[in-house]
């Protein structure tokens, strides 16, 4: 928020000058300020990790080793994955929660504002620590974002310890953040807002927050075991000392699978807000959506070994995890069906947020289908660790989570800033992203089915064509994102003034506040019809 806006709406009292500006952002306990901080940091980290993706795709442009050596290539794939998951998607969704949850439930602010400040300010330190490993002796972590033991325990570079501490910090931040969100949602709702009346975005975030609370400590435990294995003589993952490297994979994926829903449930929430607005119809099967989300969250704890079909687990375990994984498709299918039904016979318009939401529904479904293919245990032996997996999770994370974040930014930007984004630039951003995203990741399905392994800097000649196509798409996708950032900055000053409702079909409490909203959202609880 600039000063003009701030002073017009009873903003923070702050001392003048640069010190005052720094102190204001450093010590802020305001949910909107902290939401902005989260979003700005995610955007910055998005370009950091994106640059790493560009290095990866540049190296894979043609067969052979051209630009980087294999060791550095491995560091790039590792950090790209870690930062995109923990430094981009997760903080961005928390940013959305900070901005929107109090406004959507009629609260003045988050329930624990100081804790909120702490949970954000841990993150810049965590990511500085993580990226600084690039400049350390022995290089950055190079074992993939899944950091399987013994790659990370016995063979990890010295910087692995810094990676471990940064994961501890991220975990702490996520736990505090989700704690705050739960308390806010359960305690600060406007008295007339019953649980089942809560907006879908708030519901998805409530469930996500419980998932975070449950599994981030598991991740913290895993890295702690890694640390003691590395330095304090324990043998959790060391067979020589009586441990088992396979145990690491069980623990990691017990965290890892709920984690993928942590990345996608808030995205479901955003899309469920946007589709009704631009269809000018209420969300179809609203309660069903809520139950489906709860169902997905519960199932997420029972499917972890679908990442481990080739590790020699027993046949009965393979069957169990295969069927439960396929069961996840049912509540997810309910969601897709409900989005489509919401649009059915609606009066649709196609502003940028709606375009991104539509792309989300189609492309996320493709990612879901390739996920189902991977869930088939006998087929997974062919797909395991190939580019097919890479294609799958980029369809659910890029055209899934990331597109939903774009949807949300375009949808609420006018509310946040009081100014409309530039629709023409938004459309350019959308169409270029859509095309280049598919050009990048669709060929990876074919590469994977043909047997190209993931996480390698070089490949056999027969994979050359699809690889340069994917690289070309990746470069276009990377450059396209600059349009997005330019649009946000430009519109912040030059955009048209936004109205209170912003969208014709908008619904929910946040649209009853002026654009931009006052510094403290609802001083008195609003009445919910």
């Amino acid at each position, binding site marked *: 928020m600039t000063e003009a806006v701030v002073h017009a709406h009873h903003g*923070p*009292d702050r001392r003048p000058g640069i010190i005052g500006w720094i102190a204001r952002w450093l010590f802020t*306990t305001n949910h909107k300020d902290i939401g902005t901080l989260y979003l700005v940091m995610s955007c910055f980290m998005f370009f950091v990790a994106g640059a790493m993706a560009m290095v990866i795709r540049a190296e894979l442009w043609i067969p052979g080793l051209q630009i980087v050596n294999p060791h550095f290539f491995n560091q790039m794939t590792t950090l790209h994955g870690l930062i995109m998951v923990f430094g981009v998607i997760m903080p961005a969704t928390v940013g959305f929660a900070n901005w929107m949850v109090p406004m959507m439930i009629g609260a*003045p*602010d988050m*329930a*624990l*504002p100081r804790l909120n400040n702490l949970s954000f300010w841990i993150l810049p330190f965590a990511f500085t620590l993580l990226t600084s490993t690039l400049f350390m002796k022995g290089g950055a972590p190079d074992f993939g974002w899944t950091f399987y033991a013994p790659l990370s325990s016995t063979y990890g570079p010295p910087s692995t310890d810094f990676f471990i501490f940064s994961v501890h910090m991220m975990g702490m931040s996520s*736990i505090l953040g989700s*704690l705050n969100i*739960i*308390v806010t949602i*359960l*305690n*600060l709702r406007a008295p007339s807002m019953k649980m089942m009346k809560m907006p879908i975005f708030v519901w998805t975030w409530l469930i996500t927050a419980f998932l975070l*609370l*449950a*599994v*981030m*400590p*598991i991740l*913290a*435990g*895993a890295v702690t*075991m890694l640390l003691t294995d590395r330095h*304090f*003589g*324990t*043998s*959790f993952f*060391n*067979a*020589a*000392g*009586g*441990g*088992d490297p*396979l*145990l690491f994979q*069980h*623990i990691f994926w*017990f965290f890892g699978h709920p984690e993928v829903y942590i990345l996608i449930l808030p995205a479901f929430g955003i899309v469920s807000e946007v589709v009704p607005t631009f269809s000018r119809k209420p969300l179809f099967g609203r309660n069903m959506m809520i139950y489906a989300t709860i169902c997905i969250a519960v199932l997420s704890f029972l499917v972890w070994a679908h990442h481990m079909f080739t590790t*020699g*687990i*027993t*046949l009965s*375990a393979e069957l169990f995890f295969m069927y439960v994984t396929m069961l996840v498709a049912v509540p997810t299918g309910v969601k897709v069906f409900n989005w489509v039904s919401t649009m059915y016979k609606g009066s649709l318009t196609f502003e940028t947020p709606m375009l991104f939401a539509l792309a989300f529904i189609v492309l996320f479904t493709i990612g879901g289908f390739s996920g189902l293919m991977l869930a088939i245990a006998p087929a997974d032996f062919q797909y395991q660790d190939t580019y097919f997996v890479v294609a799958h999770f980029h369809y659910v994370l890029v055209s899934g989570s990331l597109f939903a974040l774009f949807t949300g930014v375009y949808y609420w930007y006018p509310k946040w800033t009081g100014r409309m984004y530039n629709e023409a630039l938004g459309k350019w951003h959308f169409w270029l992203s859509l095309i280049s995203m598919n050009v990048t990741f669709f060929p990876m399905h074919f590469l994977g089915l043909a047997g190209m392994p993931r996480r390698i800097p070089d490949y056999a000649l027969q994979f050359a064509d699809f690889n340069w196509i994917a690289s070309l798409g990746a470069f276009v996708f990377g450059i396209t994102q600059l349009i997005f950032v330019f649009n946000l900055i430009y519109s912040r000053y030059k955009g048209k003034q936004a109205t209170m409702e912003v969208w014709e079909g908008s619904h929910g409490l946040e649209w009853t506040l002026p654009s931009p909203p006052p510094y*403290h959202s609802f*001083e008195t609880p609003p009445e919910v019809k």
Partner: protein
Amino acid sequence: MKEPEVKTPRRRNKFTYVLFIVPFLMFGFCFALVPLYNVFCSAFGINGKTNTTSIRKADTAISDNRNITIQFLATNNEKLPWSFKPNKVELTLHPGENKRVTYYAKNNSDHTMTIQAIPSVSPGNAAKYLLKTECFCFTQQTLGAHKSMDMPILFHIDPDLPKNIHVITLSYTIFDLAKLKNPTARKGGRITR
């Protein structure tokens, strides 16, 4: 900065504290997974984990005449300077029958070394039916420079072995205990429990 007045009755604060406990419990649960995992693996005989202390099935009379083939494998972890191999790579026996085989080990280095052998059985679900009454993997083995020895295994197959299993592979990997920072903290082949 003026904070908005938010009413926080005691009940609400209590709820926050209760929530605070959840991550601590889950952190503890993560560590509880370690013994749980070992209990599960040995109880269901999954993951190829075999017994690391002596087990004898009370009734070991040869009661069925199935022919089960046992293959023996040996692996050195991390270029361990030892010669390590089974003296017999394969044998056939009936369930219930006691057999004794030996592995040959020679320390090729110029100093005394202590190793630990870790067994693994494949297919994984055969693990709990391969019962060792005596095994060099039950204890640590020490050899002087350029010394060698034959290390025995005494074992039998539980007659309850599923009908579809005809071949069982028993593999040993030997680990240099000097590379382990805290070798005394371990007992047998697995984490102490």
